[in-house]
């Protein structure tokens, strides 16, 4: 039984911790960006900017202030989403992040769903079929895919599914000529369903399969491995033995005890996977022409667009922090011992 007070206390501590980490990240990013370029205003203004333009940017973003005040305004601007104007595209960086960010969330969430289902299912099977050929096969597959770099995997699936067997599109978010759905939530698949635009939905789904599959297949290995280990640990744990001794039928013991306990570790690593996948989007989105944050970051790197890169770094980092926070919350719900802060008594 989960006690509400303890749970809220746990939640509060974790939230404060996450905020502290985010704060620390912002400070580190600020320091690094200033180390890389002592005159960020010149970067913001662009290559052929006038002195007066640079001065105006310094005044607007307080870059002519002492470093501690600059840091203060940097933190305020970060948490209020004021990242200024992109000197390369001329667009508001926050709006660019917003547009690209939701496209990436769509991709990463889809990948994560596939990863979690595949990883847990295969990890469970491998754990229950420990030391059999099935176990060996699963371990071989996940080690091989895990070791495969994103660019190789992406190009490989294009060659297979778009060239050799042209059954899936090689890139973009929708078929040529299809207008994307109106942005309601920002997530294309959801927006198309909300609009009852099934053509967009099906096209979006079709275009999502390959990039999501690449991320999922190349990353499911760690989830599988962790789940397998958890299953093995729990399988021979006192709890399960006790359940069997009490006469709980074996399959029922599996479902209720083994899987639930294995899910705890799998949930944790899945949250880590979210951050991992975010970094993988830089390559995958570029290869699949998926207009997400990864593609945005790639273009910013190629164009030396540092003012756009800084918020991308913050976005990625915040994404990892938030994902870990959610993992902690889920973890606590799955295992009441966490929120209680005490070990469950045996017996």
């Amino acid at each position, binding site marked *: 039984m989960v006690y509400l007070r303890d749970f809220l206390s746990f939640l509060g501590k974790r939230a404060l911790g996450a905020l502290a980490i985010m704060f620390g990240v912002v400070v580190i990013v600020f320091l690094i960006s200033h180390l890389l370029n002592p005159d960020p205003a010149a970067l913001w203004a662009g290559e052929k900017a006038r002195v007066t333009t640079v001065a105006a940017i310094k005044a607007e973003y307080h870059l002519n202030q002492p470093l501690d005040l600059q840091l203060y305004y940097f933190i305020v601007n970060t948490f209020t989403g004021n990242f200024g104007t992109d000197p390369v595209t001329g667009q508001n960086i926050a709006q660019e992040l917003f547009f690209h960010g939701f496209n990436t969330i769509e991709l990463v969430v889809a990948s994560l769903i596939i990863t979690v289902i595949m990883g847990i299912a295969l990890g469970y099977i491998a754990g229950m079929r420990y030391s059999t050929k099935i176990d060996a096969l699963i371990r071989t597959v996940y080690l091989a895919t895990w070791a495969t770099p994103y660019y190789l995997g992406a190009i490989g699936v294009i060659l297979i599914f778009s060239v050799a*067997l042209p059954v899936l599109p090689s890139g973009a978010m929708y078929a040529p000529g299809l207008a*994307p759905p109106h942005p309601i939530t920002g997530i294309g698949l959801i927006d198309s369903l909300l609009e009852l635009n099934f053509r967009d939905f099906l096209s979006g789904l079709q275009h999502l399969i390959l990039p999501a599959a690449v991320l999922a297949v190349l990353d499911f290995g760690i989830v599988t491995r962790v789940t397998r280990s958890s299953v093995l640990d729990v399988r021979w744990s006192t709890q399960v033995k006790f359940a069997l001794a009490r006469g709980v039928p074996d399959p029922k013991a599996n479902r209720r005890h083994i899987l639930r306990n294995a899910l705890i570790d799998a949930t944790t690593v899945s949250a880590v996977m979210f951050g991992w996948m975010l970094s993988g989007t830089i390559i995958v989105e570029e290869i699949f022409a998926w207009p997400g944050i990864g593609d945005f970051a790639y273009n910013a790197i190629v164009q030396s667009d540092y003012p756009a890169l800084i918020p991308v770094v913050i976005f990625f980092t915040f994404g990892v922090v938030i994902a870990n926070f959610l993992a902690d919350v889920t973890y606590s719900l799955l295992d009441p011992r966490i929120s209680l802060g005490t070990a469950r008594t045996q017996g």
Partner: protein
Amino acid sequence: MRDGIGRLSIVVVLIIIIVIAGVAVYYLTTPKKSGPPSSSSSTTGAKPNSLVVEEGTQPDSLDPAVEFTTPGNEITSNVYQGLVAPALNGSGYIGELASSWTVSSDQMHWNFSLRKGVTFSNGDPFNAYVMWYSLYRTIVMNQAPAFILEQNFANFTNDDKLASILNSINYTSPSTSNLTVMESSGQSFQVINQYEIELNLGYGYNGNSSYSALLATLTAPSSFAVDPKVIDAHGGVVAGQKNSWMQTNALGTGFYLCNPGCWVNGQSVTLTKNPNYWANNLSSSQLNYAIQPAILQTIIIYYKPTTSRIADLKSGTAQIIGAPDASEVSSISALKAIPNVNITVLPIAFGSSNAAYYIFMNPFINSELNNTLVREAITYAINYNGIISSIFSGLAQTWIGPVPPGFPNYNQTIQGLTPYTYNETKAAELLAQAGYQAKLPNGTTLNPSAPRFPTLNFVYSPDLVSEQEAEPIITQELAAIGITVNPTQMPFDDYTTYLFTPTPTALGSTSNGFGIGYYSEDYFASQDYVTAFGANNYTAAPDIFSNESTFAANAASATNNSVLLEAYRNETVTMLDSYSFDWLYVPDFLAVSINSIAGMYAPNPTGSCAGYFMYYNTVHYK
């Protein structure tokens, strides 16, 4: 007792495997269309009304006063229009927004009569006032392509006062005071009347001289007409700054529209046929290829890597793709295997436009390169045809610069001249004559008591495939005669900055005077290359002889073709005889499209985006 769930899981997995295998067998064994259709007709006989083009790089901007890449040119050239366009036969120009033009005898004053009845896609009128605004706007904003106009016209860069004037004038019905400003004499762009504008040279950094490539500069997007009312409604002109709305929106007089949201950054640009195009009702006798209305309703340009482009061409998703580099031999082989696809080697002008490669030997940085014998030895040490064969499988050619192959006057300029040839023995002998140890092909050392040639840093960019592949070959060939080089990679941005910075040094380096350089045009004109190599004194294009810049200037101000040719010839011979540069190779450029596409005219080789043309209005299905 066996684990029931485990048995069930195995059964489920097996069923899934059988289904996947069945689907795979079905697809592998069922005959299906391979590659794009050979005919454009569907079962109903109707032809498709849209085109999908796939390329590698997206535009940098949709603002013609800002964009400076060929993908950007591709979009702006279909949405906006300028005074003139290149003629179809490659020599000369035709009127786009100008119906005719005259030039003074000293070539300093160009008078353009403008077409009447031209409107922007929103109905706003185009006239001489708008053209006056558009040209000054480019200069005042002072972004990357502004220099194209600033060569010959007033330098009002970063001028707040002029920006304020531009924002204050009514271009539809200008007041008397507005007209006084636009019609006053003694300025670069002078309105004569509502449909007549005069361009007066001599106010730019070329000084008080004519410019033989002026019309070429006017074909660049920096000279396209933009709508003052629209810009005024979205921030106006700000000196020295981009306009954020114009970065991602485009509204011009052209045959295609780029509707709001047309550019999905990182994915695609969609062009839609302009239903209000001003030339829709003109008779065929009044039209030329540059102004005729579009045929296809929609052009969608996707930006994808090479593998995806090839996949989409094969599946029929794309009808035209940006070809891989000539050095990407495996990709070209994959393309050749696709049925119903045309792969055409384009005239070499396209390769020149994309990039012409050479070795630079800057004696102001590496003093040992000040010896003509040394430079000559280096030119003989390199196997040009071997490089072309091994890297490009023959899809490249040697050249004699600075006018690049296929460009106007190239053949006349190099008539009777021979490109540098490979002769290892002669290279070694020349190096020995220069006072250094040298090695003959048979291993003999010439001048054994002389000093070894100092090790040179050899600059190149690993981001350029051909340079990455050519570097080890050249390194080995130089080592064979006794010149040791130290391969020095530079990231692309640093590399291009280094190449095109005035001598003697850039980026704090004082030792990188030797390497592979390349040049690609800013606009389609031989003069662009001649000036770059002969007059600008770049790090990778040092002015070794003072008369190089004189010849370049003579060419720039030439008022007739014979003077122009003489200047080009003098420049070419001087550089060739003095071994100022080691002209390496110009890769071929390929056009790739399905068989059923036609109308891709190639008047302007500044087409390294889809590959080979700029205007989609004439493209259609056969």
